[in-house]
């Protein structure tokens, strides 16, 4: 049910600046995304296996939805599963959507 919701949201946001899950439009990091939109994670690229698997356990892995709530210059707030998280710049840039 959640997944369906994520896809719907994406379809709605497709017209805006690269907001959809579409390989043709290329990929971007969380910091380039639109707040309020839900995206599907394409790739997690932290160069750190332990960090990757930690993110995995939170439900943040390839193919899962992630919602950007707000972003600042050096950080952003996202919703993964049903939890809100604050991510720093480095981590936001390592999550490719």
């Amino acid at each position, binding site marked *: 049910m959640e997944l369906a919701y994520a896809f719907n949201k994406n379809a709605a946001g497709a017209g805006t600046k690269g907001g959809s899950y579409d390989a043709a439009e290329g990929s971007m990091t969380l910091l380039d995304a639109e707040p309020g939109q839900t995206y599907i994670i394409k790739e997690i690229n932290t160069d750190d296996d332990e960090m990757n698997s930690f993110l995995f356990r939170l439900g943040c892995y390839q193919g899962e939805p992630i919602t950007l709530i*707000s972003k600042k210059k050096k950080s952003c707030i996202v919703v993964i599963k049903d939890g809100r998280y*604050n991510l720093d710049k480095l981590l936001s840039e390592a999550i490719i959507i």
Partner: protein
Amino acid sequence: MRIAFAGNPNSGKTTMYNALTGRNEKIGNWGGVTVGSKEFQLKKEFAGDKEVIAVDLPGAYSMSPFTPEEGITSEYVRTANPDAIVNIVDATNLSRSLFFTTQLLELGIPVVVALNKTDINEKEGTKIDAAKLSAKLNCPVFETVSTENKGLAEMIAKAISLAGTIQKAPYLQADIDLHDKNAVDAEDRKRYSFVNGIVADVETRKTLSAETNKTDKLDSVLLNPIAGIIIFAAVMFAVFQISQAEGPLGIGKIFEGLFTGWIETFQGWVAAQLENSPAIVSAILADGIVGGVGAVVGFLPLVMVMYFLIALLEDCGYMARVSAVMDPIFKRVGLSGKAVIPVIIGTGCGIPAIMACRTIRDERERRTSTMLTTFIPCGAKIPVIALFAGAFFNGAGWVSTLSYFLGIVLIFLGALLIKSITGYKYRKSFFIMELPKWKVPSLKYAVRSMLERAKAYIIKAATIILICNTLVQVMQTFNWHFQVVEEGAENTSILATIASPFAFLLIPLGFGVWQLAAAAITGFIAKENVVGTLATVFALTSFIDTEELAMTGGASTVATTMGLTTVTALAYLFFNLYTPPCFAAIGAMNSEMKSRGWLWGAIGLQLGTGYTIAFLVYQFGTLFTEGHFGTGFIPGLIAVLCMVAALILIGRKVRAHFDEQYQLHKAAKAAKATA
């Protein structure tokens, strides 16, 4: 019988544990409050006739640990063979929590799921079909609200009745090579899709988590890099003002005034009763025990108000936001936002602060935080600050604010220093912090936590500090031949001869008097001792009564008794605040750092910092107020320069070692490439 409490961070394990055992362990609204396992007997009303021990474990997201405190949990449930496991599941985040649940269910130990925080779900219109979930997971599921004691009795009764049975897992991990990363990944994905399937089946949500809500707006302000930091500074300033400063907000001071009044009356009464007794008896009882301990206990109200406010802050959910907003600043000095939480806890007591550093993943970062966190003045240093602020600065609020601010500055400088010594240049340091839902802090918990700490404070004053004061009193009354020292020959007392060599070292700092050196030394046993010992050696307690001082011209009177000017008083205060903490905290540092080198480095750094700060304050303070440097400027300068030289040498040695390793690493890589 042992029942382990396991679940995701911030799911309410410790709150439940406290409700079931009647304990008052630290709770807070962020992930990672509990950093060690705790155990205690269940209350009779829950356990019946059986002896059941509840074991509270740190939160974990899975069986594979990411930070040291997560490792404690997975190791415990794997190796300690508890008779049953209560898996606390945050009902507002079922989709994430069940991942760990399915892993716990594989252990063969009977599991009972406590679907906690169901009150929040009710408010948000989220429904979870507990019966269906129970059928899917193959284990009993109970809806609970641990803050209101709801559903706990049934849940724990079931867990007790299941002990000894064997759990059948609804999902079993395939037999894979655990060293094969891809296989593990694929297996974890399968597990998550199993969990997602269950969640889709049992949960219906009215409000979706991904929708922006009111608290997001609040968070956006609190996490703003400029506004957020200003708000944080304002909040902490308010905490210190309310607890320690005089003024309309100064609740702590009002109570303190009452308290010290009673204690002094009592001391006066005791002294009057002993008018005709030998001086030594009166000195020990009236000055040492009543006066010394009373001086410490007199500041209890300040400490209590402080603990109360900090408990409220910890309970509402603000800590995670502070950690996030401070992250970019702490990153600049080689730490991360996670280091903020120990610092705030450190305003209460350094020991839990040092232990809270366990949530930091990177070892260098963790040790650095452990080393520096005690620069923030703890609750035991409040009496020292209050005493000096009252006696020398007319009770000015800026003294305590300055002490905390300088503590933070020292943490930053220290972190920069350690960063440059350990040769840390670039390493990816990620920061992720769950932002928990805001909650109205529980007044009941705050009051309980405050009373608990007050009790510990009084016990400490009545045992350790009392004995120290008595010893100090005896040691200053007698000389080495066990004769009572005569008036005018105080320098021959045992205490004076022991403390004098140390006092000699303190001359460049402006307070090379044996009495002050003795107080600083007893401060290592417990920082409150500084106040107790000063009260004892100067046979003075009236100097604590700030109002009285204000009338009699204050500072100058005390200055003549203690041989301190305002500048030297400030130097002495800072010396006591920023030298190593008490032995108990040093012990905690030792067990957390697990490295002799780091421990001695920490003690050395703290001693050096305390000495240097006091030196600078005294010498430059004297320069400004009197137009020349204070006594012992040259020897002090030499001492400080020696410390700097030692730092440079250590840094060189450490870095040379790193370069060596790096070269080896490169050579190995090159060899691999050619082969």
